[in-house]
């Protein structure tokens, strides 16, 4: 996949939709495109976080450690093309909060911590989109919590 195709792809992702193409090109050029084989880990829960990953192609599985589960962890989400993973660790400077594994052949754009912060500070649109995404997740978590407390589905 060439840079131009990556830019087109980035453009189709809500997070980057409003950013001018030349900046997306810089983002694509300065990020490493990284392919993962099936079942290869992107990162593991507890590792120090140094980058976020943007899924360009394929699907990733997000799971958290659960010693009681038979595999030692439970899957909490599956994310596909256009999703961003690993941003929490670099935003909050905490170790990875989950393990992310490629489900099939997966291609990602690895956005280093440095670049990620630069993007957020230079392009308020991205910051807003990241906030929106995080708020969505929080909302979803709250919902799940409520369900768990009241014991009935929404």
């Amino acid at each position, binding site marked *: *996949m*060439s*840079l*131009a195709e*990556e830019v087109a792809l980035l453009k189709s992702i809500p997070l980057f939709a409003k950013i001018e193409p*030349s900046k997306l*090109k*810089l983002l*694509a*050029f*300065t990020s*490493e*495109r*990284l*392919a*993962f*084989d099936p079942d*290869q880990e*992107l990162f593991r829960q507890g590792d120090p976080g140094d980058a976020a990953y943007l899924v360009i192609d394929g699907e990733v599985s997000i799971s958290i450690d659960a010693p009681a589960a038979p595999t030692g962890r439970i899957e909490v989400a599956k994310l596909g093309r256009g999703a961003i993973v690993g941003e929490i660790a670099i935003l909050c400077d905490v170790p990875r909060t989950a393990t992310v594994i490629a489900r099939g052949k997966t*291609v990602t754009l690895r956005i280093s911590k*440095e670049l990620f912060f630069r993007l957020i500070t230079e392009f308020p649109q991205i910051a807003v989109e990241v906030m929106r995404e995080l708020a969505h997740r929080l909302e979803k978590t709250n919902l799940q919590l409520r369900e768990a407390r009241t014991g009935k589905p929404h």
Partner: protein
Amino acid sequence: MEPTLLRFILRHSLRQQIGVVVLTLVSFPFLYYSLDLPKTIINQAIGGKNLPAAVFGFPVDQVSYLMFLSGVFLILVFVNGGFKYAINVVKGRLGERMLRRFRYELYTRILRFPLFHFRRVSQGELIPMITAEVEPLGGYIGDAIAQPIFQGGTLLTIVAFMFIQDPILGAAAVSLYPIQGYIIPRLQRRVNRLGKERVKAVRKLAEQIGESVSGVQEIRAHDGARWQLARFTHQLGLIYDIRYEIFRRKFFVKFLNNFINQLTPFFFYSIGGYLVIQGSLSFGALVAVLAAYKDLASPWKELLDYYQQKEDNRIKYEQIAEQFQPEGMLDESLMAPDAETLDRIEGDLHASGLTLVEEDGKAVLESVSLQLPIAGLKLAVVGPEGQGKDQLALLLARLVPPSGGQIQIGGRDLLALPTSVVGRRLAYVGPSAYVFSSSLRDNLLFGVTHGPVGQPVDEGEDAALAATRRREAELAGNSPDDLRADWVDKREAGVADAAGLLDRLCRLLERVDLEADVYQLGLRGAVDPRRRPDVAESLLAARRSLRERLASADLAHLVEPFDRGAYNTNATVAENLVFGTPFGTAFDLDRLAEHPYVVSVLDATGLSDTLIDTGRKVAETMVELFADLPPDNPFFDQFSFISADDLPEFQALLARVGRETPSAMKPEDRQRLMSLPFKLINARHRLGLVDEDLQRRIVEARGAFASGLPADLGREIEFFDSERYNVAASLQDNVLFGKLAYGQAQAASRVGLVVTEVLDKLGLRPVVLEVGLDFAVGIGGSRLTQAQRQKLAVARALLRRPDLLILNQAIGALDGAAQGRVLTQVLEETGGRGLIWVLSRPQWAKQFERVIVVKGGRIVEQGSYAELDRPGTALTELIKQD
């Protein structure tokens, strides 16, 4: 060492000096005749007075007599010249031998210096003393005895000649010498004093330079350059003042001399001329005296110079000698090459009443006594920092002599044992053990490199040369040992042959946790296939095997192999074109576009214009991407093909060339643009600029590049060849024979594991380690980490299986886990032999059978760990504090 230079000369070169003197004396009669002859020629042959009728029975007339005398004169010129030459050569050789001896003596003394002396005297002072300062001594020593005799004799001969010609003229010629002889030494004395000061000032300068080199990090980190420069300037100023004063005085002496010397001809012309006019002196005699006087000036000047030189060198010698006899030097006999050796030290280590008092009178150890059996001893020494545990280790290793008390080892006085016992049966490793600037292997083997084992095998000329070298070394009192002999004492390392030694080294590397590091160094190292064809062959096998293994593990996509017929998308355009590893600097891959041969190949294949077009696109992309960024943005360094400084220039260039075709551009614009695409890596940069057509054409140009390469440039490149070992590439690259694919997660580590697996399977791990052992560690081991240096030092001590190993906080730079591993391994490795370990962390003491606690310069506790491991003991206290 002899206290004065004269004694040094007489003691070591008396016979040779006598030889020179004899040669000199033999030359005098010839000199005298060559002076006398002109008079005979002028008065008899040319003047025609008292012409002899026959010479040696042959009748002669005036002309043939003149020719005969001129012929004799010519022969004398030859003979005198020959004498001078022979005398100079003999003197020069004598001087060099003595210089060599002196330097050797000084160096020997450094090796015997007491350790604490190195706190006072710096490298910066010692080095110039042995190198530059002694240099003039060589020239002087050859002259020391012969020169005054020769020049004095010449002078006397000439003076005698003049007196014989005419006593009054003779007296006139030497009349001023007493005045010179009185004044000059007086003036010289002040110069001598200044000379001493100069030497001291220059040493200070050298010391400061040495300090700056060692402390350059601190100078930069604290912006201290200005202070250093001011200090340096001050020192240079002092030297300038001294030197200026010296040459001012020297030139004044010269001036005075010249003036006095010019006064003498005044007497000749006036008195001599008067005598000739009066008829009481022949004209020939006056000419001969004048000629002789001209000759007189030279020996007189030489004598005065000699005097100055003698004074200079006398002072130099005394000043240097004084620096090289500190108190407490190791006795010479203890370091003698033929001193006794022991196969084993048995019995007890018995120290009684050990006291160590520092220079300032502070006692760091006080009446320390202990008695322990050496065999199987596992003793931990713990204690607070700076309260004596360090010094105890140094005392027990005989590196520092105690101020009082005794140490006996196996019933012998430790202080009286030669280094050939102490340095072989005992071993000591301190916290900052030195690593020599050679290979890892040499550093490891240093511990078993005591003396030559057997003689080197020499044949023919080599043997003759070696014999000459040895004879010269002996004449100069130097070491007779041959460097090319085998110096590695395999017996001491406990192995029978080279293979055993390698095994043992590998085993020790594991013991000190260094094996993985050396393995990595080996992978990055290179093998010379001419020296090790077997290794090259196995590595080619590993190359094939890796390919299969990667395919079977479904990892083939992580490596893109080199293929002469295909473009490698994970390599740069430059690498794809050259398709080989450059040896030297002739083909710098970063500046390929400037190489005339490369340009000619590109022109011939029609690639130039295409690459310039590609370069233009690269430049446009870079300008588009980076133009808005501030110049200090780190992205420039990390990603841009064009540095922030050059970006405006390229912007201007793009504006200038516009849509012009490459052929219409100026040559410098062409070159600038052409340099850009050479760095393109398709898979990494994903700019899509090197399309399939261009790739095909570059592969074609690759063929043209190789086939047209002139022979002299051919030696600069080792081409990629799947069936050949690449001499210029590392071991790892040879096995890989391709490029790691970009954009594949953890490609390097995943492939690395397979490479290791393949090499292990083929039994090549020892070979890789062997290559790793050849790694050059840099000055002071600077290419290793501090932890690696410490591990190396421990392995070096373990190699020779000492009866008593003393480790003094020797692995403090390792991380905690590694310290624990190495500690256990070393305890195991020393087995039935003795081990004393001064621990930096007291809790490690648990693994030792005995523990002593040193505090305030005394042993406050000793016993087994179990005995001391209870509340209230000093040991428990120390562990709690740690």
